[in-house]
């Protein structure tokens, strides 16, 4: 799983490495003329793919762009793990009470979905 860079199409512009919030894109060589994604950290948020000028970045088979995440108030226990794991601090609330996603902060990486121990966060995808 994880996104991958087509080495032939990569033009070495570094936009992907700059953009990646999870620091998983590094130069392939010393002269930084090619880049590579270290897939174990990749959260498939697609920001790298969106900023690549040469369409050199491909999603894995079966990937769909995340449209929206939302917290089920019935399941949320207010532990705030989602708030702290989110780099944009999109889940907002008070400890011990139901958290809510501030949608305009969310950049659709899905980290909170996988981190929630209560399975309280659901994801909607584009087709």
């Amino acid at each position: 799983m994880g996104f991958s860079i087509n080495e032939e199409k990569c033009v070495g512009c570094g936009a992907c490495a700059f953009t990646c919030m999870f620091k998983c894109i590094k130069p392939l060589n010393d002269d930084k003329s090619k880049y590579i994604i270290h897939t174990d950290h990749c959260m498939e948020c697609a920001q790298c793919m969106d900023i690549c000028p040469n369409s050199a970045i491909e999603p894995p088979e079966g990937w769909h762009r995340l449209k929206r995440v939302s917290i089920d108030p019935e399941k949320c226990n207010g532990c705030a793990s989602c708030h702290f794991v989110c780099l944009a601090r999109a889940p907002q609330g008070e400890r011990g009470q139901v958290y809510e996603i501030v949608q305009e902060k969310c950049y659709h990486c899905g980290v909170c979905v996988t981190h929630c121990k209560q399975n309280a966060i659901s994801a909607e995808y584009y087709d």
Partner: protein
Amino acid sequence: MTDYQGYMGKVLFVDLSKQTYGEFPWTDKDRRRTLGGKVMAADILLHHITPEMKAFDEDNWLVITTGPLTGTGCPNTSRFNISTISPLTGILTSSNCGGDFGLALKRAGYDGAVITGKSETPVHLRITEKEVTFEDAGKLWGMTTGETQKNIHRTHGMLAIGPAGENKVLYACVFSGERTAGRGGVGAVFGDKKLKAVSAFGTKLPKIANREKLKELNVKWTKLLQTHPLTGRQLPRLGTAGLVSPMQAHSILATKNFSAGRYDDFEMISGEELAENHLVSNAACTTCVIRCARMCKVDDKVVKGPELETLGLLGANILNNDIEKIIRWNYEIDELGMDSISCAGSVAFAMELAEKGVHDFGVHFGETDNLSQMFRDIAYREGEGNYLADGSKRMSEQFGGEEYAIHAKGMELAAYEPRHAVGHGLGYATSNRGGCHLNAGYMVVVEGLGLEVDSLTPHGKAALAITFQNLMEAVSACGSCLFTSYAVLPGFLIDKPNMKATRAILTAFPYVGPVVNLLNHFTKIPQMNIPLVPHGYAVKYATGMRSTMASLLTWGTYGYNAERIANIILGQKADADKLPKRLTEELQDPNNPKTKVPLEQMKKVYYRARGWKKGIPTWHRLKSLGIDIDKSVYDEALARAWR
């Protein structure tokens, strides 16, 4: 807020005196009128400045702006702009930079930042999506640009000044990574405001109006840039340094303080020498597919190597043939944080004043061992360096030598000697921020370097200069690197300089001036886009805004006129578009009467074509462009300009 995509929809306003921040009002109407980048900044400053305002006033604004394409995935769009009143020239400067700060600012949710006031103590302005904080920069104050940036963490991009900015060297610059907003002394304004650094961090990226079409365009655009003879072959292989040899051949390599256009030892300071013996690897601004920067070794460090300007001005122009020294000096000047062009120009002037027995500043043509010390003296305003820190114009006012103080409007000229490329000379003189070769319309590219239009004829040059000035203004406003505008010149013409058809077209060029001027005046004619100028399509697909060649030329014309009238309000005189007498009255080649810049002749055509009366936009012209200022302000400024 905005109905368009591409933009983040917010412009930050920061008051350093009160340590407060908020939103600067900016509407979609403003976006349609100015697009972004330097045109947006010119508009903001035009509506803020007053005739008495000076660079080091508390309410001189620093206006930092990105373009709508920045962060959208287009190639070569990391460029952002810093505009302010320049302490060097007293008029506006707009300084462009390819570092990461522009991208970072958009990630934090802002298209731009307007900074006013002065901090009492050194401050680091930290911008995030959540808030803006004023961090104490006491520990950073005194550090070089490199050290400062190493000590700022948890950011996506930053701006930093070095000792030169702290000491208000009039041409101090601002660094972002290894790139610089170099010209006009923006770093001195930062220093005056005790703004040591600005950093930005965020998770956002701009939304795109038509993602599919933009992606398709970007792949084609990348291919265009990579296959074009200028952007795809010369720039990546040789960098801007590759210009030294062709400049020598075309007699436009400024030598010994612009007393000649050729330097005997040019090969020793050439791009070929740099690439073959000193290049470690290429480097690039983020998002750039050209990758022209040169990484070189200084001691055991790998640092950014010199661009053309530094090679020419610290090489031929001071009669130095040691390229290793230039690589080292470039690094030192970068760390101190000042414009290598103005610094080198001031040094060359000092050398000539010493040679003529006017005043000995301690620097002499051909002597190189003491220059590192002089650069430090300039940055710290010590000893004779204190004079050089004010630039060649002020030096000439104090010591004499106006005829060979090589500046226009107070800003030192770039490394291109214009007596063998007269259109470029016109560009230097009419450039809004002073002696800038890019604001000039970079005429040298058609006067010999890329295409070979007759470089000594004044015919047609005014028309071409205006078109390129306007187009490059718009390219800059998009957030794009100006080098993307070179791909506008058809590759097949550049690739085949000896073909009969090429010769015929280029011979005819100077005579199509009147036709080109029609286009310059009626910018709304080309209501379509052309593949050689992908910027028009890109703005449309990224933002959803209506965008064609006509839009680009109109934005560019707006920007050029807005900056011009702002400068007049700030006190620029009607006859300010001048060059030093060495360039307009002394022949570069005593046997060729054409080798001086026939400036007055070209200016007449230029002003007429621009709709200006002797250097000043007419009221009618301003109205027709939609530039909205008070008639009383205009009338007062006009009266003052004519005094």
